[in-house]
């Protein structure tokens, strides 16, 4: 009984994560939201810019998820001359939206 319950919980959690990754992908690509392709190459996405580094192997480059969230939320904290918009600090994206984007970036 307990095993069945655990399996169900895992499956449910997996489903939720999948949904968050899908939502994160939409937010990453949406021109009115993350619009990350404007500057970053991502997974062969069309018409990507090249003013910023390509996004790949994100899990190994940012093993601490919090650091990736912080980089998107306020990149100025790490580099005051960066041209990357402070997505959280300036309210371009909500904290939950940034977390969803990070879930998607972790799949790259």
């Amino acid at each position, binding site marked *: 009984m307990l095993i069945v319950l655990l399996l169900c919980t895992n499956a449910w959690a997996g489903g939720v994560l999948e949904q968050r990754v899908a939502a994160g992908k939409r937010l990453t690509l949406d021109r009115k939201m993350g619009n990350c392709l404007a500057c970053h190459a991502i997974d062969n996405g069309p018409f990507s810019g090249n*003013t910023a580094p390509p996004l790949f192997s994100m899990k190994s480059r940012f093993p601490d998820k919090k650091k990736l969230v912080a980089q998107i939320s306020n990149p100025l904290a790490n580099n005051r*001359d960066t*041209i990357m918009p402070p997505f959280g600090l300036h309210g371009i994206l909500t904290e939950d939206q940034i977390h969803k984007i990070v879930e998607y970036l972790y799949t790259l």
Partner: protein
Amino acid sequence: MCLRIFSATFICCFLSCAVWADPASDQTAFKNYFYNKFPEIPVGDFINGVYAIDQKRRQQWLEIEEFPPYGIAIDEGEILFNETVFSDGSSYSDCFVDGKRSKKNYPYFDVNRNTVVTLELAINDCRVSHGEQPLKYKTGDIAKISAYLALHSRGEIIEVEVSGEAAINAYEQGKKYYYSKRGQLNFACVDCHVASSGMRIRAEILSPSLGHVSNFPVYRFKWGSIGTLHRRFSGCNSQVRAKPLAGQSEQYKNLEYFLSYMSNGLKFNGPSTRR
């Protein structure tokens, strides 16, 4: 690559931090940055923006320029400039001593008025001083007159003078605007048009600021019409989600003054066509 980023950062920092610098040394540093970044571009070709960088786009642009979409605007501008009779019986020629070759005289700093006078401001000043209503600043008739006058200053050298305390102050204000981050997306003009110039935002190449002012007014396919330099400034502001300013606001005039001074020595080549 690292060295390039380092040198770009260094020069940006140098330009933005160099409050002790005078306009002449700012200009030298500004130009040298672009000369070093784009050694393959002949100096005089910076007036062509991204078409100096990308040969494929240049070819398309040259083909468009054979039958330029701003042609009608020039014809209409010619009629407006030469045939408009103000209610007091005077005309534009009473305000512009060089007539249709007047574009080359702008912008300049007017000490008596303590402000930068651009071509478009002078057009409206002329109208108002002769009892007419001013034109809208960013598009329409003013851009058409500007296009006609630009055509007849093609090949003239941009020679903006910045001397005297008040003029230097206006220049410094323009410079400050250029280097200040603004808008929800937090971009400064310098971010895209110096440090990232020649690189791509989506599929668009970011144009170098050197030569930016030479080709205005422009017909933009995005607009589907001709517009002034201040219309373009507004577009940049909107894109970074900052509030666009009014045409001929002090900030835009000072920005035009700063950018024009940075391009001194290059040739006017307006009107032109841009994507």
